[in-house]
């Protein structure tokens, strides 16, 4: 087990190393910090002096080490648009994205489990067929189109729900503006979270159904039925518990896709989160913010993936044994 964890962590470190190189590469090759600082009306000699002072004339390796050192201390440069440290900007935007992901994760969990189980138990009923048909249609509709349709129906035509922005958020605790504190703010999160869950939901319904169908054919479920246990109990306790393992791993791996989709959803709804900030940073060529987002998301991503892998290894011994060479 120890060897397994070490191997996973080593892999995570290698990935972080690659991320740092990409981030540094962007920072190194685009944008001239000296010109951003002093403008264009400064003599070449003075520029050179600045470059020396900022360490821009040092060997690349030295500069890279400095970049990594600063990044580890949370300093990823200054965003020239916000005129603040990039880390600060990102941390300010993070709650919006996290709340969006949280809300749609709730939707996915509370809808996919019952629908998936139902579709597995009664595969021939018209309702199950409807759900499965709808799920393949759902997978085929891009998330931004779903978002546009939702806006058109519920905001433009029916005027039920607001179509953009976070609305009147209030402080949940210092540094965290929340949409969950009042109904007025909560209305704003409804459409974005439905749009964000529209891709994950069909995937999870299909996954849970497939796993459940497999589990229902195993001997121990048949035996539990034969013993005369309550059918609901067999379903929920005996069968469903064993479908959770693959579902959790897939769920962990989906994080990367989820991050990409938050970018799309936030752009459509002008949701003031990290994804929207990222696209704005691209449009403004705000290199520091771009690099900071890359590094931040990359690190978050690597940590979550490694933790999920290690947990999976703990739960399922087959993984760590087969990984051994």
């Amino acid at each position: 087990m120890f060897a397994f964890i070490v191997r996973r962590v080593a892999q995570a470190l290698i990935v972080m190393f690659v991320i740092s190189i990409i981030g540094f590469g962007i920072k190194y090759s685009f944008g001239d910090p000296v010109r951003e600082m002093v403008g264009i009306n400064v003599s070449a000699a003075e520029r050179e002096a600045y470059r020396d002072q900022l360490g821009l004339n040092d060997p690349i390796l030295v500069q890279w080490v400095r970049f990594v050192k600063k990044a580890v201390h949370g300093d990823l440069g200054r965003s020239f648009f916000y005129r603040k440290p990039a880390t600060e900007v990102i941390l300010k935007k993070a709650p919006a994205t996290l709340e969006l992901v949280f809300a749609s994760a709730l939707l996915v969990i509370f809808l996919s489990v019952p629908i998936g189980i139902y579709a597995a138990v009664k595969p021939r009923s018209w309702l199950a067929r409807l759900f499965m048909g709808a799920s393949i249609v759902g997978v085929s509709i891009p998330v931004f189109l779903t978002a546009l349709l939702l806006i058109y129906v519920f905001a433009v035509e029916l005027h039920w729900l607001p179509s953009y922005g976070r609305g009147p958020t209030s402080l949940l605790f210092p540094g965290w503006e929340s949409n969950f504190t009042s109904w007025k703010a909560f209305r704003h999160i409804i459409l974005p979270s439905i749009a964000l869950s529209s891709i994950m939901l069909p995937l999870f319904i299909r996954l849970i159904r497939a796993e459940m169908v497999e589990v229902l054919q195993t001997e121990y479920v048949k035996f539990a039925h034969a013993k005369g246990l309550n059918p609901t109990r067999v379903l929920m306790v005996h069968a469903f518990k064993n479908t959770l393992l693959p579902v959790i791993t897939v769920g962990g791996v989906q994080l990367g896709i989820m991050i990409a989709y938050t970018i799309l959803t936030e752009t459509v709804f002008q949701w003031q989160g990290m994804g929207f900030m990222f696209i704005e940073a691209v449009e403004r060529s705000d290199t520091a913010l771009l690099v900071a987002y890359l590094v931040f998301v990359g690190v978050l991503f690597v940590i979550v993936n490694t933790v999920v892998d290690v947990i999976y290894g703990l739960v399922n011994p087959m993984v760590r044994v087969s990984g051994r060479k």
Partner: protein
Amino acid sequence: MWQKFKESYFWYSFRRDPVAVGSFIVLLILITMAVLAPVFASQNPYDGSAIDLMDAETPPMWTPDGMDAFWLGTDAQGRDIWSTILYGTRISLLIGLGAVALQSFLGIIVGLTAGYKGGRVDSFLMRVADVQLSFSSYMVAIFFGAILQAALGVARYADVAVPFLIFVIGFSEWPQYARTVRASVLAEKKKEYVEAARVIGLRPMRIMFRHILPNTLTPVLVISTVQVANAVMSEAALSFLGLGMPVNQPSLGSLIKSGFAYFMSGSWWITLFPGLVLVLLVLSINLLGDWLRDFLNPKLYKD
């Protein structure tokens, strides 16, 4: 040949599945429309002299303000939506197919090498594939699109958009192929014909590509259909974010993006029709892929 095809089980089971037949017909129509776009289009929407700004934002024909010349209406520049959709589908399909060609090329080579050589090469390549796969292709594509656009500036980015999109979508999805091919290579490697080929002294390259590869193509075919749909979707997503095709040479995604600004003010047709075509395209490919997978998977006799 044709006779044999008509009597085959493939044709029989295809004909008996109305969903498969339906989606195949829809796909065929879409592809024909896209390939012959200049024939079907009522104007060349990217020829400045053909469009008239006075026609801008004409609603579809069946609405009170519609004009007969533009049956699906016009966009904010006065381009005929029907024609832009035809040209847009063409670009979307081009990028989708190109990306899949690149993916399968990379993936097959990596998968074959990993599966055939085994050992250290195998575990290294598969580790790389794992890492690449865990970063979703959307994320990779969005990041690289953003980086390149920041590096080149919007105007120059537009010139390289098509090859870049093919490259980035193709590059981020190769592990799908690598894993599939590797799995079937591992199964094929143990069979006698490979043994025989090795005994008569053929070079590994020849064994890999001439003997093993043809026997691993069935699963490749199955994932290819789904991958085309995914690539078209990725391209649409990138274009929607402004990281894909430019406005003067739009794909379906950029058409949707260009309509987005006018959507709230009631000009729904600029966004809706390209969106509908995109969904139809992806859905028909996905349904066909589903059918193909069930058909080629002998383990799965449907109840």
